């Protein structure tokens, strides 16, 4: 009798354990790596989209790993080389093509062909940078672009109007020069990639180019580039635009200097709003388009982030369902809302882009933008070469013309290797 009871108990126990195991097996966990830190306000809407996805797909759980921007690329590469990449991750636009070429990423065209949600046509064409050998390896997520942030109180105090062109920008900087309290425009040369964005904005305004379309030849000796380079350098060397220490200032510190009213202007993107709110919620600031060489001639760079499914992923189907969900216009709008502008065209019709004037102004700016140069594995080396030659000119070791000549030589050498 006792033995029979024990057997029944064992059978029930086993059935319970097995059914629990079966239930557990039904839930697939996908690993998603992002460079948006969960401490940032920008993460909140993204977390909401993920929660909505998990609710709509109870068989999939998204495990998120937040990695700081500075380590993001290297961690992904190390993980991929070690054979343990995430299932899906953010991909910096510069890496989309090279990483597709290196075989790290899963081609997405077969998934797209069977999808009711995702199509190539739903994105701005320029954003499809993850293409290699006719296959698409990444889906565009969002992009930042740049506008001028300004301190309204300081502008009012010195009677400065919104500058309309480079001459007026110089005039505004001159009026706002008030050392050691504050300076006209914060500059930062501590970080090659930050300088790459900041500087190329002016090149784009002046219709200059870094290389030709096929990325075989430098175009940095052309007058449009040389003039932009000279103007950018002279903002600091001749017009005292920047607070002292600009040579060591990196992106985050530039925002801090603006937030602490050490500079009256800052070139930045939509992400700055959250940073400024954290650092100085009382700051009275506004935005305007970065003035170009002539009135109405605006320009800025775009870049931003893509999504990619990693070839080493063991849960590609689940990762695709997640990617498909984020790509729905309403979700793409929400996902990008605090950090970027969505590359999904229809997302502009959804909140917050349809309702928030700050984001609306950035979205309008996209009409005047382009990528720094065509996607190429050589971009980091070229960015470093630009950084070095800009520093040479800023430190007075070369004239702007000598620096651009040397830069042309350097870039041609990089491209010939």
């Amino acid at each position, binding site marked *: 009798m006792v033995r029979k009871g024990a057997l029944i108990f064992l059978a029930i126990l086993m059935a319970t354990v097995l059914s629990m195991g079966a239930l557990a097996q039904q839930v697939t966990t996908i690993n998603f790596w992002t460079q948006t830190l969960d401490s940032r306000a920008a993460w909140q809407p993204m977390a909401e989209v993920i929660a909505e996805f998990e609710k709509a797909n109870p068989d999939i759980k998204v495990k998120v790993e937040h990695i700081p921007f500075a380590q993001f*690329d*290297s961690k992904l*590469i190390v993980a991929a080389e070690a054979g343990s990449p995430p299932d899906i991750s953010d991909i910096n636009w510069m890496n989309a093509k*090279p*990483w597709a*070429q*290196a*075989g*790290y990423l899963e081609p997405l065209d077969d998934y797209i062909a069977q999808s009711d949600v995702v199509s190539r046509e739903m994105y701005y064409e320029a954003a499809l940078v993850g293409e290699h050998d006719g296959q698409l390896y990444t889906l565009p997520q969002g992009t930042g672009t740049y506008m001028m942030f300004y301190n309204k109180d300081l502008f009012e105090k010195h009677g400065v109007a919104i500058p309309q062109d480079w001459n007026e920008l110089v005039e505004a900087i001159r009026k706002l020069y008030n050392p*050691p309290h504050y300076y006209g425009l914060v500059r930062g*040369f*501590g*970080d*090659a990639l930050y300088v790459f964005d900041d500087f190329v904005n002016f090149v784009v305004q002046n219709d200059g180019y870094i290389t030709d379309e096929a990325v075989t030849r430098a175009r940095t000796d052309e007058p449009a580039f040389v003039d932009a380079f000279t103007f950018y350098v002279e903002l600091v060397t001749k017009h005292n635009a920047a*607070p*002292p*220490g*600009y*040579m*060591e200032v*990196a992106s985050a510190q530039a925002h801090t*200097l603006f937030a602490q009213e*050490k500079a009256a202007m800052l070139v930045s993107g939509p992400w700055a709003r959250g940073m400024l709110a954290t650092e100085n919620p009382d700051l009275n600031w506004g935005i305007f388009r970065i003035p170009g060489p002539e009135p109405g001639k605006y320009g800025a760079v775009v870049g931003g982030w893509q999504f990619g499914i990693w070839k080493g992923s063991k849960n590609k189907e689940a990762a695709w369902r997640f990617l498909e969900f984020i790509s729905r216009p309403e979700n793409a709008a929400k996902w990008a809302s605090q950090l970027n502008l969505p590359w999904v065209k229809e997302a502009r019709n959804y909140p917050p882009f349809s309702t928030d004037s700050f984001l609306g102004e950035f979205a309008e700016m996209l009409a005047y933008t382009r990528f720094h140069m065509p996607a190429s*594995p050589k971009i*980091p*080396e070229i960015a*470093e070469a630009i950084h*070095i030659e800009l*520093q*040479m000119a800023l*430190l007075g070791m070369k004239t702007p013309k000598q620096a651009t000549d040397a830069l042309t030589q350097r870039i041609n050498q990089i491209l010939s290797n």
Partner: protein
Amino acid sequence: MKLHQGWRRLTPYGLVLPSVIVMCLIMLYPFVKTVEFSLRDYTLYSSHRPFVGLANFAKVMKAEWFGVVFKNTLAWSFWSMLFQMIMGLSVALFLHRPIPGARVVRSLVLLPWVMPGVVVSTIWPMLLSPLFGPVNDALLRLGLIQEPITFLGNIRTAMPSVISANVWSGFPFWVLMVTAGLQNIPDELYEAAAIDGANKWQQFRYVTLPHLSLILNITAVLSFIWSFNNLTLIFVMTKGGPLYFTRTMPLQIYFSGFQQHQIGQASALAVITFVFIAVAVFSYLRMTRRQEM
């Protein structure tokens, strides 16, 4: 009986075998892989990685930055080690005397050493900032300078500034080591020297220093290697700038490998660094051993 003896002889080897295997996996495998990568055209843009012999070595050694970076690395490691030694030795000797509170001060002195590198490299730029830094503020108030100095952005002051941070962070280790050494010197030797008429300097020169020489040598080697391989401090403080003025080998390896994605060239640099350190340390130890003999 013979079989039994054979087993007994093999047992010690069997016992250390697991550790040897683990050590090989942890240390030897990455090293061999690095050497292999250095001989291939290995970028992160192509899955095709052909064997190229010593081409990566030739390429990095011909690069315009190679000489500067190498010189920077030597200067950074040598001056860091030297000033850490001077500070560490001075503080240890001072605290070795019977002064009230010496134990507490000795513990407090260790603080910079136990602080994570990232914290040290965040604090120092704040101290040296031309806009908010107390160092510039003090110099201005004392009338020693008329305008704030951009310590980390100036080509003349950037390297001394990062070395200062490294000295501050590393000297407590010297204090620790030298203090341990001082405690092992018998008091009788000082008494005997005093009876023989030796003054304080002579006691230091002929009693303290010879007894500390082994510890000083080992600490010097460790300090040099740690500084040589240090990435965090310079990476956070200056990112190797301005221009190449504070760029050291580990930083260049990082830039080549993880920013420019040239894994073959980064591996070649790593191998060069390894060979240089191995030869330098080996020669130094041989030289000091010969002197001791």
